[in-house]
């Protein structure tokens, strides 16, 4: 192994070392990047440190000034809109109506709702926190084991980043210069597989250890769940000041052409009377 490779490996090791000490990840990467380049410039004659530092003049701005990157805050905004439109609650209720009759069904419903929410939100953190706020009180009320409840929600949260639109896939596609839409297409099947496996794990662990979830008694088949609840992803309304009218959030269609996100409809907001 040459000197340069060794420096690279040491850099990687020190990056993980720093991360253990709770340094913000971005800060660690900057520190290791600058430090590593400095050390390299000492050992490798044709790499110089000053020109490297000079690129910071425009590096940050040029990386931010990226058209493709603009979908990231927009996806986050879309997730917030969906969350405030109570899409998360509707999804959970709808899924609960479908799955609530099984032992551990409410936890499975949380997974399903996470998957549905992942289809409008590109961030795992946002998905986990939004669904946690909706599903965790319900799981607690029904005396689900906290281990199962939080585990299901934490696992379900990862669906947010797997099921398109996904912030991580956008950034990855920008870095490797691949087609964002192809990335999204490729992520659908793994996302659905993950949902199936998560639900299977809940099914099996509840079967093995019935103490994890309460028994279901007299599940009300016809609960007061709105008809649209199971299809909450399709439409939802968030009422503004007037109870009879509101904005309708139509399911976003991140249709992208070629590489990038040209000519796409992030979402369509239309004013229409609420149900």
């Amino acid at each position, binding site marked *: 192994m040459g000197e340069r490779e060794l420096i690279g490996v040491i850099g990687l090791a020190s990056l993980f070392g720093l*991360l*253990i*000490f*709770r*340094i*913000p*990840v*971005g*800060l660690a990467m*900057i*520190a290791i990047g600058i430090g590593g380049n400095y050390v390299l410039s000492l050992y490798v004659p044709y790499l110089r440190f000053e020109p490297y*530092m000079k690129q*910071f*003049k*425009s590096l*940050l*701005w040029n990386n*931010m*000034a*990226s*058209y493709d*990157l*603009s979908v990231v*805050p*927009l996806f986050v*905004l879309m997730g917030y809109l969906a969350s405030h439109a109570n899409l998360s609650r509707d999804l959970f209720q709808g899924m609960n109506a479908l799955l609530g009759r099984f032992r551990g069904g409410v936890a499975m419903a949380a997974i399903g709702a996470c998957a549905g929410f992942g289809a409008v939100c590109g961030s795992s953190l946002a998905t986990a926190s939004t669904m946690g706020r909706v599903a965790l009180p319900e799981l607690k009320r029904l005396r689900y084991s906290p281990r199962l409840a939080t585990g299901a929600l934490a696992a379900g949260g990862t669906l947010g980043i797997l099921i398109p639109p996904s912030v991580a896939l956008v950034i990855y596609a920008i870095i490797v210069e691949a087609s964002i839409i192809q990335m999204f297409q490729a992520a659908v099947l793994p996302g659905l597989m993950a949902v199936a496996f998560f639900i299977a794990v809940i099914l099996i662990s509840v079967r093995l250890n019935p103490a994890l979830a309460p028994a279901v008694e007299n599940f009300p088949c016809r609960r007061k769940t709105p008809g649209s609840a199971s299809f909450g992803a399709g439409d939802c309304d968030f009422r503004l000041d007037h109870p009879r009218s509101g904005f309708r959030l139509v399911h976003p269609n991140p249709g992208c052409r070629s590489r990038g996100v040209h*000519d*796409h*409809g*992030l979402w369509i907001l239309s004013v229409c009377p609420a149900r």
Partner: protein
Amino acid sequence: MGEKLEQLISIWALLGGVLLIAIVLVTTLNVGAFTLDRAARLMGATVSGLPGYEDFVRLAISAVGLMFFPYCQLRRGHVNVDLFAQHFPHTVQRALDALWLVVTAVMALGLAGYMVLGLQEAKSDNIVSPVLGWPEWPFYAPGIVSLILWAVVALYQIAQGERHG
């Protein structure tokens, strides 16, 4: 002082949000125009999209992205790995926290300094956006302010930590 600073940071992030709404509106208009175009083509007419749409989005997003940084710091939203450090003794944790805040402030100020140089260069080189022909250097300014605010928040959090500790 603390409340004023938090207000200022929130307002700064909200301004970023306003820019983001502008991007949303422009995008909506553009997509709407493309859809109209498809319909109009059936009748032999064309509707054009917004000229320079990508230019605007690119310039605006450069400001928006950085304008959220101080708010993120205020909410301690920057990603870190909690898994190991939460088992450290309390004093060590607090010391590490303060250390990283100092490093954050130094790095943010350093980046701001380099960005000022970048602004001067972009101004003297007359860099303009390809379609709209807008000069790019004014869009460095919100970024520089954001980085400085980021450092201020980090320093404020050090002071705050000690007062509470």
